[in-house]
């Protein structure tokens, strides 16, 4: 990330020589702060599909269980148990088997980041 920022910055500085800035668009840039440093991009990509069944960010409106707000430790051990077949499931074992233990860790950490529960 830092190398990209450097480039943006130098590009901006170069351009600033010839262009006078006004400062609208603050709202837009403030919003983009949310999408920042501690979101692991691979963790994110691994996790986005869970919402197809569990609802956005794991917030389910139906009988499929919600996991919104649960600790990363809880999510990680649940996924590992499903994967190992140690916890009964209709479909979760078939899904959990698609991820390595490291990926399961990344998924759990990602959701922790989403609800700010990581240490």
């Amino acid at each position, binding site marked *: 990330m830092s190398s*990209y920022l450097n480039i943006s910055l130098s*590009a901006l500085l170069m351009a600033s020589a010839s262009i006078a800035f006004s*400062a609208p668009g603050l709202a837009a840039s403030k*919003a983009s702060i949310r*999408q920042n440093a501690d979101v692991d*991009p691979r963790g994110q990509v691994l996790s986005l599909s869970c919402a*197809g*069944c569990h609802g956005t960010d794991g917030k389910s409106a*139906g009988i499929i269980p919600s996991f919104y707000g649960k600790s990363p430790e809880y999510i990680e051990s649940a996924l590992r148990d499903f994967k190992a077949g140690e916890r009964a499931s209709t479909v979760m074992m078939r*899904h959990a088997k698609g991820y390595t233990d490291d990926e399961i860790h990344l998924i759990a950490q990602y959701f922790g980041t989403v609800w700010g529960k990581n240490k």
Partner: protein
Amino acid sequence: MSTNISRRDFNRLFATGVAGAALGMFGTSGAAFAAGYRVVVIGGGFGGAATAKYLKKLDPSLSVTLVEPKAAYVTCPFSNWVLGGLRTMKQITQTYATLARRYGIHVVPDTVVGIDTEKGTVKLKGGRVLGYDRLVVSPGIDFKWSAIDGYSEALAESKMPHAYQAGPQTLLLQKQLHAMKNGGTVLICPPGNPFRCPPGPYERASLIAYYLKQHKPKSRVIILDPKDKFSKQGLFNKGWKRLYPEMVEWRGPAAGGKVLSVDGGAMSVRTDLGELRGDVINIIPPQKAGLIAFTAGLTDDSGWCPVNPTSFESTIHKNVHVIGDACKAGAMPKSGFAASSQGKVAAAAIIRLLRGKEPVAPSLVNTCYSLIGKEYGVSVAGVYQLAPSGIVEIPGSGGLTPIDASDDQLMQEAMFAESWYTNIVRDIWA
């Protein structure tokens, strides 16, 4: 690396004045520099609407425009439930109000008629031209009308609905089922692979039988299939035997399953083994990518769109991403779940690409639930990754509901199917 900011991006950024604000932030935060980039999404179905929502959710600074002609989108998922009498059309209709209000997506009710991939613009039927930095194309399918002799769009709209794009077609098929006499014959004629929702025709046969069993129990459902095998075949066969013995019959190519031509006047189809009459005839024609994909030159000889599986960027045109039914996604089936999963991968990739970063390795998922009876659900699941040959299913993952699943499990799957629908449409349209 500095080529990541092209001259065009540069000009545009300074023209919009966003760069000034971004500059001010560098001192205090690690916020990235994607503010104001324009992404246009074509099509507000499972793929397009999911992409638009997740683009804004993951990076609210983007300017996202969703072009979709229909004010109300009727989902194909659960349209078979409507035929079974288990849902109303209203319950499977989605709108774009929340995407506009809550996520700030510019929803434009229009149709894209042309894409200028050199200039980076799309032209709308209504005359407007929209510029983009990245374009997402999710137009779904079109039908190969001439594949079956005698079939046509006009015949689909009058006598032999496909009901494979939900809406008026679903209603027509439902109306015909309601009007049919007890003891009538329903013919369901699916196409060969690949096509949208591989288990769709068989779930349809099940839920039509569910309706008939209650209201017209002397009737029959015959599936005429050009394929030797079909999705979840063992599970469907078992379910039909248990719930609809004598009512549902599947005929493969050797048993006269291949439909060669249809006759709207006689309400009949012709196969290798001769003529067959139906009181209700559901023809599901072979398919290809939606029209705009052809107009824009995004398709290859197969009639579908080749893409880079990491970002879903077209391998034909730069800065254009094709997702959903229209794209070639390796081992993934053409489903709403798959389209939304692809849309999210594309959204995350686009955000990184706009910031000059490489997209990360994709992770893709699909699950298709099918309802065989009201308390009898089955599913097929898949988790996919990138291999040298493209998108492949991860060995050992996914698969079917066990063939010996208990009644309790089948009932749970039926309830989870219902919950899946509720959650996925909220994840995409709310």
